[in-house]
């Protein structure tokens, strides 16, 4: 057998092996993920309304978006296999409620198991939210009264009460509905923080268009000793952007303490503990003075009679 043939045989053996291993991997990866029939057939026990969809949306943002991306945007993470676009209408047409719920619960491969992380109710809320992205009509009942103020015909009045740290918001119509209180509109209060906004509360306006928020007394203020509160109408799609930023000096003082102002072993050299600075310098100067004294005397030996 000559060199050429031998290498050819090795090559073909290698190729066959490689093909075999590779195809196994592909088979494993492409094995379709099928939910058991009984799970597939499960119906969503949660009555769908706008609140539930919103809750589902929130849960989606926290738990799903990091891999699946924004629904319909196809900006999912480049994993293998690719996480499906959950806002894709075709996908939603094919997948039953029970199937989506099963997959969230059980997980497989890169898809986490949410069984212990989310409650059953929460998992169904995500299903409800996803369903609302599909073609099927979704009952959005519940809150009502939205249409009248749609398209930005809404203004917000803010009243701050320093005494009990509360914010009273009133939502009133503008344009055609000028002066008419907007009822049943969800208002979100958020504190502006370094890397994101902290939700302080969500309040639905009452029949007179009022929404009241009690500011959490335990929240520290920012480094300028104030807290910027963002007040906004949550449903931007229906009402347009209705938002205000109000600085308040409620809550706790910012606890900033400059660690570097104190003397310590770990800080810069002149901020060393006083006893250390004093001891070190006294001892070093003392010993060297002593030593130099001896040397000076050595030089005087010559003159001793």
């Amino acid at each position, binding site marked *: 057998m000559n060199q050429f043939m031998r290498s050819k045989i090795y090559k073909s053996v290698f190729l066959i092996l490689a093909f075999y291993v590779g195809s196994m991997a592909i088979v494993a990866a492409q094995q379709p993920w099928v939910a058991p029939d009984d799970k597939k057939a499960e119906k969503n026990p949660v009555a769908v309304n706008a609140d539930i969809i919103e809750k589902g949306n929130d849960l989606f943002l926290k738990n799903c978006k990091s891999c699946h991306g924004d629904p319909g945007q196809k900006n999912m993470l480049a994993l293998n296999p690719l996480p499906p676009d959950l806002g894709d209408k075709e996908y939603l047409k094919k997948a039953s409620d029970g199937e989506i719920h099963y997959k969230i619960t059980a997980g497989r491969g890169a898809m986490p198991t949410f069984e212990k992380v989310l409650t059953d109710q929460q998992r169904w809320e995500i299903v409800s939210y996803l369903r609302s992205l599909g073609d099927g009509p979704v009952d959005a009942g519940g809150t009502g009264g939205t249409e009248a103020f749609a398209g930005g015909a809404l203004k917000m009045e803010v009243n701050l009460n320093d005494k009990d740290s509360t914010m009273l918001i009133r939502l009133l119509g503008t344009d055609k509905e000028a002066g008419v209180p907007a009822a049943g509109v969800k208002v979100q209060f958020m504190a502006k923080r370094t890397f994101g906004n902290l939700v302080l509360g969500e309040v639905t306006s009452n029949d007179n268009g009022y929404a009241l928020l009690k500011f959490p007394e335990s929240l520290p203020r920012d480094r300028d000793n104030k807290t910027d509160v963002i007040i906004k109408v949550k449903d931007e799609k229906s009402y347009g952007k209705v938002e205000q930023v109000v600085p308040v000096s409620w809550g706790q003082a910012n606890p900033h303490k400059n660690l570097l102002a104190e003397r310590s072993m770990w800080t810069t050299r002149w901020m060393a503990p006083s006893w250390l600075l004093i001891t070190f310098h006294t001892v070093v100067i003392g*010993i*060297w003075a*002593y030593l130099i004294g001896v040397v000076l005397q*050595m030089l005087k030996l010559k003159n*001793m009679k």
Partner: protein
Amino acid sequence: MSSKTHETLPAAEAKTLLNKISDDLLRPIQNHKGFTMWALFLGLALALVLWAYVIQLRDGLGVTAMRDYSAWGSYIANFVFFVAVSLVGMLISAIMGLIGVEWAKPISRIAEIVAFSAVAVAGLVIVFDMGRPDRLLNVFIHGRFQSPILWDVTVVTTYTAISLVLLILPLIPDIAIMRRRMTNLPKWQKMLYDMASFGWVGNDAQYHALHRMLKVLMILVIPVALAIHTVTSWLMASTLRPGWNSTIFGPYFVTGAFVAGTAAVIILMFFYRNNFKLKEYLTDYHFEMVSRLLVLTSLVYLYFNVNEYLVPGYKMPLHEGQHLTELFTGHWAPLFWATQIFGLILPIILLLFKPMRKPLPVTIIAVFVLVGAWFKRFIIVVPTQFHPFLPIQNVPENFTTYSPTLIEIAVLIMPFILALIIGTIVSKLIPVVSIWEVAEQKGISREVLNQE
């Protein structure tokens, strides 16, 4: 200093005796037999290790076997070793001098030579270990008073200075004698002796001043010497690492240092006794006494060893337990037990027998003790680092072991060569046993000693 008064010999007899003493002790300075070969050897060896250091400077510390989980290796062990050896100067010339131990007088200069050459290179060893030796001055410009390294730099510098003065000061009367007796010297050497004799004529005022200065220095050197090795031990003890986080590291290191230093002095005594033909001055009696000293220091050190290993070994806390297991029965066990048995336990046992305290046997034992002392420092410094609190993961295989590379070993040898060079130069310039102190012991009066 000279607490005992000696019987004074008649002047004529004293003069003959002094002639003999100074002839014996000054002969090695003028006898250059074999010196050229020795100097050539030292020079070549130094060039070789310097070349290794240049490679390290060029390529970085990566040429050593040190990595992130053995960030301190044999260089630091080397540093601790040299600091340890230097401590003997304080023990023999200061403590014993102050107490007035007569037999220690002829060997106190040997102890001072050991101390000075060891501490002078110790400072250099630390520079070999630096990743950026070009920034050495930063230590003086930006030095942090909270850092044990700054304390170490301070005490090493101070101890070097004191050791030098402590070496020169008791030399002054000897140099005066050399000026008078050694006439056929090269010009530079003559000038050097002229300068270093500080106008010594041996009057009472000078003697008085000399003894007072010596006393001051001997007292001063004790805390400084203790500090130098205690602070060196704090380089390790000031960390939270299992195996280093120990409160007895200070005395543990200091007592270990006395063992190493005494062994070094014994070896040097043996060399001088044979090569410099000083059998009459470094007698069997001196070896007997210094052997006893070695046993004493070794026993104290053994006691600290028992404390250092037995107490945590009894409790076996998680991480320190793993470290101790590796030392007692694991990867480091052969080195650990060899060091403890051949470097400490066997020497103690052997030296209990009188024949073993004769010059040759005790010197052989001292070699074992000294080699053991070096490896003991290695065992203190290196294995501990492989047992951090959190696992060593996601790093290459060579991060999890340590055995020095050839270049590292060469750089490691450099301080030994430098110390030998310093020692050689010193013993070619001065008598290694003090003429005036021996003369005083033998009852030669000051008048005879300082006669023109």
